[in-house]
């Protein structure tokens, strides 16, 4: 009896304490993120201003040397540009492949739970294994070359593996679900009456798509593109496995500085510069796309 009486009173008390409620609900996840994201990031920021001594020793002496070196050597600019370029190529390719699929799935009358499920099936296997299987497909005597040779489309095996193209192909493949799902859910949320209204007002199917569905699906396109771009530009495994030497992206260079050169301060500086560059790029694109204002100013 006493517990029965106590429980509602605790809940009632909580109802009057929005702050306590907020802390209880958000606290655990926030603490997790703080410990394992914010703290490491702060450490990386701190290390980037420390001094490197030969032999992999770090000294807590403040220096701008790491950043100075980074900005003075054009190779890092090239790597940053290359990372962005591969990220953008992956995003554009994934978008071109995903949009029609997402559109088709979203416009099926009953939705497409089974097909959506199939899109997610690759996630049951580890990313590493999926990237390795692309090696089998792309290598010189791999599946793709064998098929093309067998069909007589090519006479010599084409070098695909260990090229930047292989990296883009592999990353595009793994990006598809991240692109399809947000676009699918946004298109699914577009009132079909809007398209029909456009058609009764004189627009044909293509014009109705361009005037209504396409602009209204942009939030989904944007969400998918940002995820895919970040994943692509910052990818480590695909360039490491499919790219071969010389196809390194920023993540590989950073890993190399930490793990092979044991130069933690310089690796940290690279990480910070890369993070800042990515944030600026994404924010600029979002600002430019101005998605918040497609429905006009708020009341």
């Amino acid at each position, binding site marked *: 009896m006493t517990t029965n009486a106590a429980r509602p009173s605790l809940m009632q008390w909580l109802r009057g304490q929005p702050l306590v409620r907020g802390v209880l609900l958000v606290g655990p996840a926030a603490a997790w993120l703080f410990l394992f994201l914010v703290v490491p990031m702060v450490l990386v920021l701190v290390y980037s201003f420390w001094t490197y001594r030969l032999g992999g020793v770090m000294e807590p002496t403040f220096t701008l040397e790491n950043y100075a070196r980074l900005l003075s050597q054009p190779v890092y600019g090239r790597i940053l540009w290359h990372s962005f370029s591969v990220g953008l190529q992956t995003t554009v390719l994934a978008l071109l492949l995903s949009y029609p699929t997402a559109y088709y799935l979203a416009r099926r009358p009953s939705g497409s739970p089974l097909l959506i499920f199939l899109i997610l099936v690759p996630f049951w296997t580890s990313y590493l294994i999926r990237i390795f299987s692309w090696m089998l497909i792309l290598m010189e005597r791999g599946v793709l070359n064998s098929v093309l040779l067998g069909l007589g489309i090519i006479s010599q095996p084409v070098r695909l593996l260990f090229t930047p193209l292989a990296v883009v192909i592999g990353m595009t493949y793994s990006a598809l679900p991240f692109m399809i799902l947000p676009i699918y859910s946004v298109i699914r949320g577009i009132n079909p009456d809007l398209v029909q*209204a456009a*058609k009764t007002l004189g627009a044909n199917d293509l014009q109705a798509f361009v005037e209504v569905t396409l602009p209204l699906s942009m939030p989904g396109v944007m969400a998918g593109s940002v995820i895919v771009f970040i994943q692509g530009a910052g990818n480590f495994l695909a360039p490491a496995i499919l790219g071969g030497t010389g196809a390194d992206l920023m993540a590989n260079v950073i890993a190399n500085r930490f793990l092979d050169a044991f130069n933690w301060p310089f690796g940290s500086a690279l990480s910070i510069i890369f993070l800042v560059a990515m944030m600026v790029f994404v924010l600029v694109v979002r600002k430019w796309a101005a998605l918040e204002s497609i429905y006009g100013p708020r009341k």
Partner: protein
Amino acid sequence: MIDVELRSITKKFGPVVAVEDVSLQVRQGEFLTLLGPSGCGKTTTMRLIAGLEAPTSGEILIREEPVTDLPPYHRNLSLMFQNYALFPHKNVFDNIAFGLKYHKVPSEERKQRVKEILALVHLPGMESRYPRQLSGGQQQRIALARALVVKPAVLLLDEPLSNLDLKMREKMRVELKQIQEQVGITFIFVTHDQQEALMLSDRVAVMDGGKIVQVGTPREVYERPRSRFVAEFVGQSNFLEGHIVDTRSSETEIELASGLHLSVPAAPHLTKGSKVAVQVRAERVRIYPERPLVRGQGFAASVERMLYVGDTIQYLLQLESHDLLMATCPTTSAPPLDRGAAVWIGFESEDCLVLPGDG
């Protein structure tokens, strides 16, 4: 001139027949309402006219041109959707000018026509607003403006008033009718609201189970329903079931299941012994404190229940034969009758309509 003609239109969705053998002619400038409960096929019929669905069989003509195989954008009609379907990412001007653009109206003329139509729907100067900045009633008028500005042969309206609150709905009904008279465009209006249908329409087509069961003026549909379905759907009625015991020349006598006898106007199409339902409108049943000296029927009754509506009072009355009758009386300065009050009720023979019984 006939603006819209349906010739034996049938629409099946898989095994489900949504619209069955519907034929209808809508005259130019007419306000015609498709009235019926949800699932009766009225919205499908409208979508077939619009070209948003293709009929399984039958033919559709607009201004005497067959359009059955034409897409919506070649049918010279507009549609106003229940949820208005305003383009949320376009401002009022671009919403209204959308149709003009695809009807190849030059840019200068577009501005003029948008301005004129906004004045017509009493929202001048709203060109740069976005739909989400508008109230429900304003969105509704913009939707009407967008549909009208292309000067279609026919405007189809799919329950356009059902998302508005009561006061706004009453206001928009009047406005809609005025605008229709002003522009002279044929309106085909879909609704389940019988009051709306009666108030607005030149003619009402009542639908049930995918078929049109009666077409007529509001008065015809209300006062001379052809079937029990129509009688029940439109207005509030009593149905007294019984069979014909005598058919004299001027009046027919009916015995109800309870044993009560009613005299009703002659129903020449029905023979002695036929099962019938006698319809008496609730507002035609009168309540008297004493036995009335009127032509027609008078019965002793007691008040079972009283519903105070405001402008009217609804009584549920039990006759001595245990038949139950609804009566709607205008509110007067006299206090409403209490439950259990003994009264007399009466209605005239002319207020009884004999309909074929169910089985």
